[in-house]
């Protein structure tokens, strides 16, 4: 039982790390640009497809993964210049309209280019084994690597945000948007950078997850909503908040699905427990989010609104 718990905890952490990679850029877009971007999930999906395509042509995992980054960066820049830039000072509703449209466009393009059937990406040889965990349990090396890479990215982001000039602007922007606007022309470059980096991270997440999950046109949808949950629990605009919230959401979601029914069985008869468990498990993270917002209407690390 304990081993199972440990295993699921690791799975949850790995899922959380993935959520963090997608959420990190989006929380800044929400917080600093006050921009509602529904199309961030499709960038994650496009990352998966670009990875699959690169693997198909080069056959080399590491080369493909490296190539995903510039492709996503360029895509992010292109979207910023063509669409997002024109919507920064428009209402949230116009932003919803445009980015909802973008979801449809990008998802359909992917279906046209690669079809609707799920694609799979082979795992690199070097990471395909598993290592011994406590006792007889083993854990896949690849998943450990995902956690490690995610932590490294988190550390790098922390460094950029805490120690560099760009980071200073980001922090100022998350705390007080008017202040960033007052900084003048720099702002356009900052927005572009945040946007492109966010697209790159989301695409990267889609790429590294591709050997574990299959790549399919719906993958962006499911992660997008959980990303929103992460951002809101962490506090809009806070990368640190996104990190902790992502781990929390990843772990709660994974453990809930596994242990919810088991716990409920202690309370009621098995059939009812199974049904209740199936009902409650997917709702858990949303209940968590509603509860957090009930106690802290601006999330765990969000700036509070003055009364």
């Amino acid at each position, binding site marked *: 039982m304990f081993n199972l718990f440990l295993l699921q905890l690791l799975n949850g952490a790995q899922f959380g790390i993935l959520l963090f990679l997608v959420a990190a850029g989006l929380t800044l877009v*929400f917080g600093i640009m*006050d921009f*509602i971007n*529904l199309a961030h999930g499709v960038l994650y999906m496009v990352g998966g497809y670009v990875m699959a395509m690169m693997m198909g042509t080069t056959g080399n995992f590491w080369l493909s993964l490296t190539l995903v980054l510039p492709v996503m960066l360029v895509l992010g820049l292109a979207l910023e210049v063509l*669409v997002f830039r*024109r*919507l920064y000072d*428009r*209402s*949230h*509703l*116009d*932003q*919803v*309209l*445009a980015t*909802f*449209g*973008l*979801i*449809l*466009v*990008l*998802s*359909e*393009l992917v*279906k*046209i280019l690669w079809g609707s059937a799920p694609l799979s990406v082979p795992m690199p040889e070097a990471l395909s084994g598993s290592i011994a965990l406590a006792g007889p349990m083993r854990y896949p090396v690849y998943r450990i690597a995902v956690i490690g890479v995610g932590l490294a990215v988190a550390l790098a982001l922390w460094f950029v945000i805490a120690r560099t000039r760009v980071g200073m602007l980001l922090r100022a922007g998350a705390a007080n948007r008017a202040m960033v606007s007052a900084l003048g022309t720099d702002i356009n470059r900052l927005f572009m950078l945040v946007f492109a980096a966010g697209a790159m991270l989301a695409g990267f997440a889609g790429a590294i997850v591709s050997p574990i999950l299959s790549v399919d046109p719906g993958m962006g*949808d499911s992660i997008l*909503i959980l990303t*929103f*949950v992460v*951002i*809101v629990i962490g506090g*809009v605009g806070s990368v640190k908040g996104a990190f902790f919230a992502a781990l929390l959401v990843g772990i709660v979601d994974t453990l809930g699905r596994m242990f919810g029914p088991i716990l409920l069985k202690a309370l009621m008869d098995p059939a009812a427990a199974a*049904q209740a468990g*199936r*009902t409650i498990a*997917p*709702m858990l993270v*949303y*209940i968590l*989010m*509603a509860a957090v*917002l*009930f106690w802290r*209407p*601006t*999330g765990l690390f969000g700036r509070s*609104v003055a009364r």
Partner: protein
Amino acid sequence: MTYMTQTLTEPRAGLAARLKLALAIFALLAVVPPLAHAMGEPFMIIIATRMMVFAIAALSLDLILGHGAMVSFGHAAYLGFGSYAVAILSRAGISDLVLQMVAAVLASALFALVTGAISLRTRGVYFIMITLAFGQMAYFFFVSFSALGGDDGVALAARSTVLGLPLLQGETGLFYVTLGLLIAAFAGLYLLTRSRFGRVLTGTRESALRMQAIGFRPLPYQLTAYVISAAICGVAGVLLANQAVYVSPAYMSWHRSGEMIVMLVLGGVGSLTGAMTGALVTVALEEGLARFSEHWRLGFGLILVLVALLSPGGLSGLLRKFNLLRDDK
């Protein structure tokens, strides 16, 4: 909540023009069934019914989103409550439309009362996201509801009856009942938005601080509007289930909620007629493009992006730009 007044401020000069537009739409709709029969295209009636069902849903959303500046991203949940009220009651042997509507209204209102009270503690992006979360909860509840088909949904044995009569069995009967309810929803909301209550609601949209400074606490009014809006959308859900003779959690997915916002923004928020035209045009576009190509979503998505980029204020903004919606007050 002044963050969106930019596109929300609806010049009221065009009020009379708006009423005329609404009447014209109703008149046009009323002649669809005979026209469809004459043209030998009865399928048109089914599409028009769907258009009207979503027009009712969009109208309900316009009350809170357009007039109250509460951007709900979970409104499709109420379409679901309405549809499942039909499925659950008809399975229990209650097939009367009126009773089903009462149940749908009560269920929607209750869910809205509880979730609205919590959601309205938050503002801006947080409000959008928490309503999304509640919508997802409702969605996953019905996904795991295996007695009613779970993920796949469930087909209804038959459409609802009205006072024991099989009024809705034919497409034409359902069409006119839906049209009647659309007109009722429009008329009710038209009066509501101009009443004392509506004035407080729109006033809060313009400036909550101002409203507090003259002695209002916005919350009870916002919450009431939220509940009314949910109840109306629940009625749309009852109609949707009857139209499709089938219910499924897909009715309440976040995609649907997003699509409802899209309908509103496409038509122009805060004017009721905008919501109505937006829904009619959206459903017509979807159905039309779908006949054209299996990849219709590409074209539809491009249209949405272009409207957002080129025409703030949606279609009514566009019309205004070309002076087609002139004020004649």
